[in-house]
């Protein structure tokens, strides 16, 4: 079993059951609870809030993200959970290659939910929608440590 503190995480996908499949830099593949991964990524917050609160927060976070992704599936081509600026980041690639106001307004509503939901509060989460111009732009915003891609199908 690889040690999660030394190897950077790489993505496969997250599922609605809270499991994520990872590839490590040295080629191992393993399944972990998403909550455990988030706890490692947000170690400082986990230390403050306690492990059980973080697990509850992650479950609530994934419910909120899943609901938003399903509701906006027609407007996006990909969604990742990654990290940026010492916070978790929902990164979505929008279908339109020009400004999509409805998607932006929907993301602000999600931001409000993430900020005000007491269960999610131990986690720091941001959201960002980027245009879809191939792989290079999105890789700019994906952390090497955490790249969980949500199945859209």
């Amino acid at each position: 079993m690889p040690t999660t503190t030394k190897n950077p995480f790489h993505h496969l996908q997250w599922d609605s059951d809270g499991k994520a499949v990872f590839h490590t830099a040295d080629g191992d593949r393993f399944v972990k609870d998403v909550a455990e991964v988030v706890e490692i990524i947000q170690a400082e917050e986990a230390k403050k809030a306690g492990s059980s609160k973080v697990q509850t927060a992650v479950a609530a976070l994934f419910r909120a993200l899943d609901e938003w992704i399903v509701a906006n599936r027609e407007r996006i081509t990909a969604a990742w959970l990654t990290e940026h600026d010492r916070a978790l980041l929902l990164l979505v690639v929008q279908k339109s290659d020009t400004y999509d106001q409805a998607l932006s307004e929907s993301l602000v509503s999600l931001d409000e939910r993430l900020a005000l939901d007491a269960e999610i509060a131990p986690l720091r989460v941001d959201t960002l929608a980027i245009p879809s111009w191939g792989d290079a732009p999105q890789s700019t915003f994906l952390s090497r440590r955490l790249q969980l891609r949500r199945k859209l199908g």
Partner: protein
Amino acid sequence: MPAWTDHLALASRCRSAQEVLHQNGPHSEWIVAIAFYEALHLVEAVAASDPGFQHDRAVTHMERRELIYQHDRFKAIRLAYKELHRASLIARYMEGGYLATDRFFAAPNLHQLVVVGWLGAVRRWAAAELKLPDIASPAAMAPPKG
């Protein structure tokens, strides 16, 4: 820690810089980036002017975001501020920043969308909050001469 008036001065410098850039050729990626920083300083000015926020130290983008989402006083500018931040990220970090900015925000409408629209919303809000109407005066909203 800067006082709220210091943040206003910095916002004013951002506005001047936008005008200079606008008059000297196509610099959409920097106009967008500086527009975001003007908005940031207007938010900081409002927060620093209210002792209730205990906004007495430098904060990260994430901490500022929490301030904006956890207090109703900032509700009116959540969308505009988020869009300015997003535009500045796209402009600065996406491959070919100026091309990305021009294409995504439809270059001919860039001023209308970014400066009059989003930044205008933050300026009007800050003008009302700080009771300083000059921040959002018609002159401040006009397209720079170029």
